């Protein structure tokens, strides 16, 4: 009886996995570098409005954020509209001038990104803008989401 020998390639049919850790590490480093672990803890409620004619801010290091919205109070309540810079709420609008001026000295090409809640009133924003004018930070950006 004829015996058929199964044809088989002499090589091993295995994918070499020894390089896998390297690949994974490369991905890991990419995500580690791009991750922003902690943004500021928002003390105001923020719900951005939408607009269609918007531009991207490419140079993120130039950006300093300023938040305006109703203050979050304990017990899930919302207070009056407040301004937050970095981690603190600024009660005295006049103090914004010095705060922003200090930031401008650190970064002369500063862009102030105004992140304003869509229901907050324009009046507070115009006060803030007046302060920014006094501080000399003229480049601003009204942060909005893209309209679909």
């Amino acid at each position, binding site marked *: 009886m004829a015996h058929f020998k199964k044809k088989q390639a002499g090589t091993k049919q295995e994918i070499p996995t020894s390089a896998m850790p390297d690949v*994974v590490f490369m991905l890991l480093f990419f995500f580690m570098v791009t991750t922003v672990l902690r943004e500021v803890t928002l003390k105001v409620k923020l719900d951005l409005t939408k607009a269609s004619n918007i531009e991207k801010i490419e140079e993120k290091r130039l950006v300093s954020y300023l938040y305006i919205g109703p203050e979050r109070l304990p017990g899930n309540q919302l207070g009056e509209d407040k301004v937050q810079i970095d981690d603190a709420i600024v009660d005295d609008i006049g103090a914004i001038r010095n705060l922003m001026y200090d930031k401008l000295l650190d970064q002369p090409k500063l862009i102030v990104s105004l992140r304003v809640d*869509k229901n907050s*009133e*324009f009046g507070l924003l115009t006060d803030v803008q*007046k302060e920014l004018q006094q501080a000399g930070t003229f480049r601003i*950006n009204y*942060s*909005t*989401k893209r309209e679909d």
Partner: protein
Amino acid sequence: MLLKKRKREGAEINGSSMADIAFLLLIFFLVTTTINVDTGIGMVLPPPLDPEQDPPPIRERNLMKILVNAQGLVLMDEQPVPVGEVKAKLIEFIDNPENSEELAVSPEAAIVSLKTQRETPYNIYIDMLDEVMGAYEDLRNSASRANYGVDYDKLKPESPQQKHIKDMYPKKISIAEPDS
């Protein structure tokens, strides 16, 4: 006679679980990453006004006054206009294709003034600003297509072509202070 030294086993760290550790970290960073590009409407504020200096004179026909109240109703040069028509009206005002006496002398001279009330919600203000930006975007795009065959945002940044279009339609937007 000296004792023969015992042959040592090769000191090796088991590396097979390294991939697992790396995967774990990878998944953590994958989950926490937010690659968010910050988008928004860019503006440049004017320097603070000198109270002793009078503002420069502006011819009435070059100025488009847009008033928006807290309910989102729009007045353009004292005429009530529905929000949907603001952009078309603005383009007509800036470009002035028929050289009307009422509209801007030239696109370079046109100034759009946006004024709202203190009580106006922010999203109404942004909607209006968006319309103004959209009008300029359309004008720049059509000028760019007529001259260079591509859209304005496809032109190279800082190139002479882009500057040319930018000078043709400079964005002159004035955000007026609301009356209290």
